[in-house]
């Protein structure tokens, strides 16, 4: 039982990342009709926003420590951060410790600007072009973005820690009334799950309860009619693109402490998030979220030893197997609408 609950937690956690990326992808599909292969790269850039922000916070000056030596035998150069100098060791240390959550503030404007520039500078020329062209251009963009990151940050993963108080794990099972020490779960993974639930909720309520969101939803359903009503739908769609980029970016920022970011993490998630979107049904936001969590949980279950011993290698293929079964039994995914991306 405790094993199953642990795997459900793991699944929800993985699912959060899938759902957030798929949500942004679906927004772009649904509103702009663009297949965005650069969406994984946006997730990756989000994670590197956290890396960059914590680098900025850690910007430092050098003090030479005569008592120690470096690997060549010269006096050791010790880096002192400005933050600690200005705010004192205690306050400065806390700021540095909280670098990742703080970088959300940094990432939102950066991601929205990146989204704007992408849409105005490149994507808008491809609205009327075939999907194949969109794939080629966004794939090219994804390569360029990840190579730029590699050029500046190298290919190795960069450790980006969570704040001290969220490191390590605690006895989650005790909260639910299980025996002590059976369900131990890391803090930050729960933070990640709650965070993504909040973001998903925010996106949905934005679309549901604001006029802006209403127009966008109307545009998703019938772009032409909305245009005929004299509403400048393109401008709103640009904003939507910025928002989708920000959602992917935030998913990346908060993911950084879970697994150290590297430049190809976007490509690792790209294919999976496409599968998630399609399994959820093209153009359906609730579908994308549902499919994200569903695939996350199934993937976690498939990696349990009990299941692997019956079906060796099932954890390698489970996502694709489920995708095939769902697409064959439900022609348009879980919650897809007719006529979207079927031509």
């Amino acid at each position, binding site marked *: 039982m405790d094993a199953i609950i642990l795997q459900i937690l793991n699944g929800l956690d993985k699912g959060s990342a899938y759902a957030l990326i798929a949500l942004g992808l679906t927004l772009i599909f649904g509103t702009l009709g663009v297949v965005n292969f650069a969406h994984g790269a946006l997730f990756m850039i989000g994670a590197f926003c956290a890396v960059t922000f914590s680098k900025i916070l850690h910007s430092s000056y050098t003090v030479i420590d005569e008592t120690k030596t470096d690997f060549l035998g010269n006096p050791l150069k010790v880096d002192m951060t400005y933050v600690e100098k200005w705010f004192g060791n205690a306050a400065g240390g806390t700021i540095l410790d909280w670098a990742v959550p703080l970088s959300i503030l940094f990432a939102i404007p950066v991601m929205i600007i990146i989204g704007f520039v992408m849409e105005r500078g*490149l994507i808008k020329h491809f609205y009327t072009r075939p*999907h194949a062209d969109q794939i080629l251009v966004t794939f090219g963009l994804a*390569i360029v973005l990840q190579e730029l990151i590699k050029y500046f940050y190298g290919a190795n993963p960069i450790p980006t820690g969570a704040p001290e108080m969220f490191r390590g794990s605690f006895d989650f099972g005790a909260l639910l009334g299980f025996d002590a020490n059976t369900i131990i779960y890391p803090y930050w993974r729960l933070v990640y799950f709650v965070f993504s639930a909040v973001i998903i909720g925010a996106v949905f309520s934005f679309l549901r309860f604001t006029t802006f969101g209403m127009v966008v939803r109307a545009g998703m359903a019938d772009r032409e009619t909305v245009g005929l009503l004299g509403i400048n739908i393109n401008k709103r769609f640009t904003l939507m693109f910025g928002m989708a980029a920000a959602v992917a970016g935030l998913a990346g920022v908060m993911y950084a402490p879970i697994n150290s970011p590297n430049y190809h993490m976007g490509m690792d998630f790209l294919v999976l998030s*496409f*599968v998630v979107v399609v399994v959820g049904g093209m153009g359906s936001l609730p579908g994308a979220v549902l499919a994200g969590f569903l695939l996350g949980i199934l993937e976690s279950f498939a990696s349990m030893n009990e299941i692997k011993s019956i079906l060796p*290698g099932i954890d390698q293929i489970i996502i694709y197997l489920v995708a095939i079964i769902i697409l064959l039994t439900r022609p348009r995914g879980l919650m897809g609408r007719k006529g979207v991306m079927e031509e």
Partner: protein
Amino acid sequence: MLGLNKKDSVLLLVVTLLAICAPFILNPFPTGSAMAQFNAGYPDLMQRFVIFGIFAIGFNILFGLTGYLSFGHAAFLGVGSYSAVWMFKLLSMNIIPAITLSVLVAGVFALLIGYVSLRRSGIYFAILTLAFAQMSFNLAYSVLTPITNGETGLQLALDDPRILDAAPANAGSLPYPSLFGFEMSDTYIMSAGAWQFQFSVGYYVCAIVLLVSFYLAMRLFRSPFGMMLRAIKSNQQRMNYTGLNARPYALAAFVISGMYAGLAGGLMASMDPLAGAERMQWTASGEVVLMTILGGAGTLIGPVLGAGFIKYFENIFSKINDNILHQWFAFMPDGIEDIMVTIVHPFIGKGWHLTLGILFMLVVTFLPGGLVEGGQRIGRLFRRRKTGRNDNADSTDSTKKPAE
């Protein structure tokens, strides 16, 4: 000629000529000169151009004609390679049985996957094919290792049975794939002054296969069957209303294109007897999609150009290093030399992906029809210059579909 109209015959002749003269055309710079870095006329790369050309031609039969975007075509190339290597291990080093088996196995595999996947269309179809290919890749890499030799890739071994072949004279070394005594790795090197040209048996075998494949694809494009496939792309519903079931046609196209991929896989294993699982990864499937779109989807020659373009960058640009840059810019004053090296540095060697990504974006933004359209524009430019009088003369021409 051969049942082709004039335009197609010319195209086939041009392709034939290019294929025959490739060792010269691809080696324009003298060996040892600074520009020799850009020479592509060595057997391995020439073979790759041709093999990926075949792969892309086959993919285009499906994608260019029917519009069905398969994101799992690399799986067929992979099973083709595995079949061929197994044939080398068990039966004979002759490439004919190996390639025959790869085409057949890939065809059967394509029939199975196609039968299931073609129940859906559009992006749902793409994801189904992707899912099948990724499952094949993941399993080949891990659980199926007894058949595929996993990460390392399936290789020949000294103790393979090879029941049809006579015991080799030299028992301590591996035999090479061959075609009735002609070993694929044999190369005749011709030196002409500073130039060196390499004529490889393997390359010419590939080239002949390419020409046959190209010719068959041409006939297919022009046949009633080809028209039927185009009908699927332009309006499947209307086709259904005329009482025709589109699915068998699409399935036939899928299987044919899968067999082309298997052929490419078999040839690849014949040129270099190793079959690695990475050949089936989604990135490999994506690569052939990119090749086709980049060259010009739906055109005959486009996919071959796209394949050459991508393989050239992968193999030539990745090998340029700072040392070579310094040689190139050595004629400049020291300061400027260093600046030039610094500017070019991010785009070469380990940065070849960056160059490729930028080129993808440029080509697709400015040449919507792919490289083929680029060629046509240049062609039109020359024609316009020749006529010189009427700028509008070609305006009707530009609305035409790209030549096929």
